[in-house]
């Protein structure tokens, strides 16, 4: 039958591109990303073997058990086999979840270290904005009615609040290398999503909620941040970058921003 070789060829082609890594993740830029990749590879090996064997077996029975005019085997099944493959899949699948649990825990159960640099994220249709607390380490008070996008203030900074005087607002995310970062994420209209492929992290930004996300990046560079939750007609354009800088460059950048205020 033609079908068996077609299934086999498709299976081999699909597996080939996963093994050759023709289209692949960008390299990770933190410990979490490397742990992520290890968990992905573990899963890929388990899933790849299941996928290959299942498709191969399907092709095999199609080849082997063609009608030749005789009688088929009369059997209603085999309880031992049922128990065996039920147990085996349950152990494998649950084992994978357990092995991945610490990666999830590292992102979501652990608190950000106390010295983490806080940065507020404000997502709106269709841009990200980032606010740094300045030298005093405090974010100034904001109000909806004070929002003035045209004037470069998507947060609605209260001019009466002195703690806000040294706050820096930026349309792209700048962070120092190797330092823990804590994002405090807000959306002022619809649901958006913060995603940096190289960080292997993604988080919805939900209006009415304050969602924290903490991480470190240990490789200097500029990384893209595409919005990853449908947010309206400009969703495909909602895009910013995350620039990982040396500590000195970062301080320099902050100083320049403050001077230009």
């Amino acid at each position, binding site marked *: *039958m033609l*079908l068996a070789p*077609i299934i086999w060829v498709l299976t081999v082609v699909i597996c080939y*591109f996963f093994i050759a890594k*023709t*289209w*692949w993740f960008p390299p990770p830029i933190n410990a979490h990303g490397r742990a*992520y990749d290890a*968990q992905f590879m573990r*899963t890929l090996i388990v*899933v790849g073997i*299941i*996928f290959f064997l*299942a*498709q191969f*077996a*399907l092709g095999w*029975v199609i080849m082997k*058990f*063609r*009608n*030749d005019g005789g*009688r*088929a*085997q*009369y*059997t*209603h*099944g085999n309880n031992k086999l*049922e128990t065996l*493959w*039920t147990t085996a*899949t349950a152990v494998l*699948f649950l084992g994978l*979840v357990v092995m991945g649990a610490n*990666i*999830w825990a590292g992102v979501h*159960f652990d608190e950000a270290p106390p010295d983490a640099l806080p940065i507020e994220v404000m997502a709106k249709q269709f841009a990200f904005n980032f606010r740094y607390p300045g030298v005093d380490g405090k974010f100034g008070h904001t109000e909806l009615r004070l*929002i003035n996008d045209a004037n470069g203030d998507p947060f609605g900074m209260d001019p009466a609040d002195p703690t806000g005087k040294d706050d820096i607002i930026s349309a792209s995310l700048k962070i120092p290398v190797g330092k823990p970062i804590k994002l405090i994420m807000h959306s*002022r*209209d*619809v*649901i958006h999503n913060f*995603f940096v492929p190289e960080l292997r992290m*993604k988080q919805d*930004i*939900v*209006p*009415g*909620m304050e*969602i924290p996300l903490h991480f470190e990046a240990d490789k200097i560079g500029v990384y*893209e941040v*595409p919005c990853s*939750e*449908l947010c*309206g*007609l400009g*969703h495909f*354009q909602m*895009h910013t970058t995350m620039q990982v800088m040396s500590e000195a460059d970062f301080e320099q950048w902050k100083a320049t921003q403050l001077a230009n205020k």
Partner: protein
Amino acid sequence: MASPAAHTAHHAPEGFIRRYVFSLDHKVIGIQYYFLGLFSVFLGMSLSLLMRFHMVNPNAVVKWFSWIWPTAAQGGVMTPELYLSLMTMHGTIMVFFVLTTVPQSGFGNYFLPIQIGAEDMAFPVLNMMSFWTTFLALMVMVSAFFVQGGAPLAGWTAYPPLSGAGQLTGPGEGMGQNMWILSIAIFCGASLMGAINFIATTVDLRCKGMTLMRMPLTCWTWLVTAILGLLGFAVLLAAGALLMLDRTVGTSFFLPAGLFINDHILSNHKGGSPLLWEHLFWFFGHPEVYIAILPGMGVASQLLSTFARKPVFGYKAMVYAILSIGFLGFLVWGHHMFMSGMNPYSAMAFATLTMCIGVPSAIKTFNWIGTLWGGKIHFTTAMMFALGFVSLFVTGGVSGIFLGQPALDLYFHDTYFVVGHFHMIMGVAAIFGMFAGTFYWFPKMFGRMMNEALGKIHFYCTFIGVYCIFTPMHYVGLVGNPRRYSDFSNVNYLAGVMPLHHFMTYAAYFTASVQILFIINLFWSMFKGPIAPPNPWNATTLEWTIPSPPPFDNFAGVHPVVYHGAYEYSVPGAATDFIMQTDPAVVPGSSH
């Protein structure tokens, strides 16, 4: 078996309208649902072709676009909002009016009563109302294209505030979104009527001897699907009503305080949560996946057994797998929400339950291969589609093992990896189940055979075609390609996957065009195909004991009595290689 009793037989009503339009006959209603689904699938497919075209040619000027959409495609260039409308409507029409409608309401309506030996569904009038309500829902949905602002752009998941704050969030979010919610609410009503009917029919109308464990697996899947529908659509209906209230009356179920949308402060809302919608929606939405695929699993089991001439391997295990999928299906909705901002500890619970639901799915695959093992496979077109179903089910299923882990979902959520996954499993695998069902039951439904040669060409082209469309989506997902983008040119790292997007688009054109073969086969065979015998496949279940097409009351006044399980193929010592469910208990020539 009792002798034919003409005096107890019921006859079809005489008038055309009562017989074919507002019919109470479950067979006519099943065919009505089938054609409603057929219309919808071509509509949904056309929308997807426009989307695939736009993704690789975002700036193309196509004159006739501006004829259809004078504002949304002014000058012939498709706007991003038009793209999102097409996407929303593609998803909605495919999920509700194709995947929910054809396998369950179409084939289920036609064959559930016959396979359990009943004259009709338990509530024929409710059945008729259910179809015409579905029809109304489809009309309302399609009309969303023609209202001011066009169709909604919030996706088939309609997350608020995008879907809840009215026109401020984008064109199509005014009247279009209202029409969408209204249509879904009507559809929920129709599905509830259908679900009650399916459950009552299965519980009450089984003929003598048709114990639950003798039911064909198709009936088991229709029963469990109906239970899922009853519990799921009730919740969606409530959620839809609340969303409509938020939009029109100014309640705040899903809208929090502090919204500043499109330069407007929304001061009339406070206290709502978008997460509430996500919970309610996915409490329906995840069972919905099984509503789409369970009947396909039933059809695959039925066909693999019939055409391998072997009993289903592990019938009981299959029944328990269907039941546990049904039960666990209500406990895993949170895996759609790992990135939503819900309590991250709950993600671990949902992940564990999600992996648990993978187990019965794996059991079914093993049992299908076990059914084929040692068989004598007859390669009819129906069987080819059933085999294709198994292959696609495996391919679509295994990618779920990545997505079910919250840790790995940290990257894959909302990428094309997800799009590839669900299209493989609940899209094309389910559609292969429908094709398989069509080729298998067409002779019974229309009294004629379909063309096998044309059927096989169609099968091979479609099988290779869908693999070419949906496998590359996994690769572009690996690269981090976000879904629901109308244009990829803003993201630099996506430049490398554009050749794959072109490939997928060509594969989609190819696959869509070979569907013409199916349409030709379907309509040509309906009128010109060779006359079908009552049991062309030498199958065992009750629908094959009666003429093709069946008389109005199915069994011509006779009450069938069942003596065997549904899949008694190749019984040693039996005269033929199949024992029909109604054959006498002691098989002549049998030693036991």
